[in-house]
C-alpha cells in the first residue's frame, strides 16, 4: 500500500527531519564560510536541508569516494599476501537530506556505467542502502540548466522521498520509489501529528505540486535545445571552435572534482617497505597525463582535445552508449571554475559555430 502524501507546514517538516535523523545515519548540507557541503549530522541545528544554494560538491563522494582503498598487500621475500580492505564505512543504512534534484538525478545517470558489464558492488551497496530525501528547488540558480536536458524533470523518481513547497504555501512530502515507501512505512509516525490537510485527495495534492513545478521551470536564466546541441555536436569532431572555448582552461580539474557525474578514476599503489595499499581515486580527462602512454605517445596532448573529450563524453558519447546525458545541468563546474568556463556555454558555442561552418 502506498504511503499517503503528507501535507504539513514548516514545523511539521522540521519534525519530519528530526524523525528521519533519529532513524538512521544522516548526511545533509552543512554551512561553512557561506558554502555548503554534505556532512554527517545528528541534529537539525547542525545543518540546513533547505540550503539556499546548492552544495559546492555533489553527493558523489558519498557513493564514489575521492580516494578509496581497493586492496592491501604484504609482499616479502617469503611470498605475497593480498587482503581485502576493511568493511566499507559508506555502505551502512543511511539517509541523505537536502540533495538537490540534479544531485539525485546524477546517480541515475551513474547507475548506467556502474551496472553495465562488470558490476561495481561497492557502489551498488551504497546505493541500495541510501535513501535520498530532498526538497525540489523553487528557484533556479544562476548557472542551473537542468530543465534543458533530455529527461523529464517533472519525474522526481531520482529522489526516494520528495518534498515540495506547494504554491498554496503548504509543504507536501511524498515517497517516489519503493525504497522511499518502505522507509516512510518504517519511520516513527509521530511527526504525522502535524498533518494539516487530512481531507485533500491525492490528485489535488499532485495538482499543487505540479503548479510549483511550473513556476520553478519559469525561473531559469539558461535554456537550450538539447536535441539540437546533441545532434550538432555529434557531427563536428574536428571544429576549431574547441580551441577557442578551451583557451582559458588552466587544467586544474576542479570541474571534474565537483561534477556529480564525472566518474573517471585512476588506480595507484602506495607501498612502504613490505606493505602496500592500492587506491582508486578521482581523475579527469582534463589532466594532460590522462591518456599519456608509457613510451610518450599521447593522443590528447593539448587542451582543446581534452576539452573536446570532456564536452563530447558528456553530451554525445555517454548518450550514445548508455542513453543518458552525462551532464545534469547543475552548474557546479561553472561556479567552481577559476577562469569562468561554463559547460553550458562550451556546448552551445561549439554547436552554434558548427552551424555557421
Amino acid at each position, binding site marked *: 500500500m502506498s504511503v499517503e502524501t503528507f501535507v504539513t507546514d514548516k514545523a511539521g517538516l522540521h519534525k519530519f527531519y528530526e524523525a528521519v535523523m533519529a532513524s538512521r545515519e544522516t548526511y545533509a548540507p552543512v554551512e561553512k564560510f557561506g558554502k555548503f557541503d554534505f556532512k554527517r549530522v545528528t541534529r537539525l541545528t547542525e545543518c540546513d536541508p533547505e540550503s539556499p544554494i546548492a552544495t559546492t560538491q555533489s553527493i558523489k563522494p558519498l557513493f564514489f569516494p575521492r580516494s578509496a582503498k581497493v586492496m592491501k*598487500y604484504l*609482499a616479502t621475500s617469503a*611470498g*605475497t599476501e*593480498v587482503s581485502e580492505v576493511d568493511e566499507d564505512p559508506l555502505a551502512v543504512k543511511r539517509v541523505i537530506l537536502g540533495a538537490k534534484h540534479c544531485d539525485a538525478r546524477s546517480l541515475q545517470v551513474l547507475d548506467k*556505467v*556502474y551496472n*553495465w*558489464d*562488470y558490476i*561495481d558492488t561497492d557502489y551498488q551497496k551504497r546505493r541500495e542502502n541510501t535513501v535520498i530525501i530532498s526538497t525540489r528547488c523553487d528557484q533556479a540558480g544562476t548557472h542551473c540548466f537542468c530543465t534543458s536536458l533530455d529527461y523529464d524533470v517533472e519525474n522526481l523518481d531520482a529522489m526516494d522521498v520528495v518534498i515540495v513547497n506547494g504554491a498554496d504555501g503548504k509543504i507536501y512530502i511524498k515517497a517516489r520509489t519503493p525504497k522511499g515507501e518502505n522507509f516512510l512505512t518504517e519511520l516513527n509516525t509521530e511527526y504525522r501529528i502535524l498533518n494539516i490537510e487530512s481531507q485533500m485527495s491525492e490528485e489535488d495534492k499532485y495538482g499543487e505540486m505540479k503548479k510549483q513545478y511550473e513556476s520553478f521551470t519559469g525561473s531559469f536564466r539558461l535554456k537550450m535545445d538539447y536535441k539540437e546541441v546533441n545532434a550538432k555536436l555529434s557531427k563536428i*569532431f*574536428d571544429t576549431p571552435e574547441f580551441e577557442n572555448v578551451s583557451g582559458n582552461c588552466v587544467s586544474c580539474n576542479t570541474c571534474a572534482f565537483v561534477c556529480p557525474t564525472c*566518474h*573517471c*578514476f*585512476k*588506480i*595507484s*599503489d602506495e*607501498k612502504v617497505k613490505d606493505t*602496500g595499499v*592500492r587506491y582508486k581515486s578521482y*581523475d579527469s*580527462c582534463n589532466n594532460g597525463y*590522462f*591518456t*599519456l*602512454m*608509457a*613510451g*610518450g*605517445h599521447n*593522443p*590528447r596532448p593539448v587542451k582543446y*582535445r581534452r576539452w573536446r*573529450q570532456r564536452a*563530447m*563524453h558528456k553530451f*554525445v*558519447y*555517454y548518450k*550514445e*552508449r548508455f542513453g543518458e546525458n552525462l551532464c545534469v545541468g547543475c552548474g557546479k563546474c561553472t561556479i567552481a571554475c577559476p577562469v569562468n568556463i561554463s559547460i553550458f556555454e562550451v556546448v552551445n558555442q561549439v554547436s552554434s559555430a558548427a552551424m555557421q561552418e
Partner: protein
Amino acid sequence: MLCKVDKVIQETPDIRTYRLKFREEGMMEKFTYLPGQFVEFSLLGSGECTFCIASSATRLGYFDCSIKKAGVVTADMHLSLEEGDEVGIRGPFGNWFPLEELKGKNLLFIGGGIGLAPLRSLIQYCIDNRNDYKDFTILYGARTSDGMCYKDEIREWQDNKSLKVVLTIDQPEETWTTNVGVVPKILEEVVMPVIENTKVITCGPPIMIKYTIQSLVKLGFADKDIITTLEMKMQCGLGKCGRCNIGSTYVCKDGPVFTNEQLKSLPDEF
C-alpha cells in the same frame, strides 16, 4: 590472482618476456583466454599496467607477457622483477581476434617491434590448429636486428615448411642478409600478398600501423579484412575508469581488436 615468474627471457635490450604461472594450483585451467585478450599486470608497489597475452592457451601450463621498458612500472620490472618473484594478474579482459572468421582463409600477419607480441598469441594458436587455415605468411619488421623479439621462435617458424616468414629491418647491417626497408615497402615489394580470401592481422607502432593499412588498402584489401589491435592507455579493464574511451567505445571492453572498418567509424583521435 597471484602469479610466479617462471622464466625471464631477455628478448632485446629493452624487451623482456615474462613467463608466468599461477601460484594457486588449478588456476591455470580456469584462466581461459583467447588470442588478442589482455591482462592487468601488477608489480605490487610500482603499479598496474596493461599487457596483451603474448602466448596461446594451446600451449599449456603458462602464459607469457612481453614487456618493453617504456614507463615507470615497466622500468621497475626490467630492473627488479626476476624469476621466482610474484606479481598480481587481473583478467583476461577485452575481445579477441575473430577466430571463426579466420578459418579457411589465407592469413597474413604483419608485425613491427613489440607489436609482434599480440600477434604471437594468434600465430601460436593458428600453428596449433594449422589445418584450419590456408597460406600462412608472417611479415615482421624491427628497427634493428637487435630489436627483434622471439628470435628463437622465429627460427622455428622459418624451419616450419608450412609457414612463410619474411623479416626486415629499417637500416642495413653488416650481418643482415635479408630484406632492408620499412614494413609497408617490403609488404608491397617482397610479400606481394594474395588479396583473395586473405585476412590481414597487424600490430606495431602507431606510425607503422598507419602506413601499413594505407598500403593494404592500396593493394586492394577490404577494410573488414584488415584486423588490428589498439594500444590505448587503460587502467581498470572493466569499462569504468574512462581512460580508454574513443568516442562511445571502450577499448578495454569493445576492443582492443578492431577491423579497419570499425576503426573508420570512430572519431579520428589517434
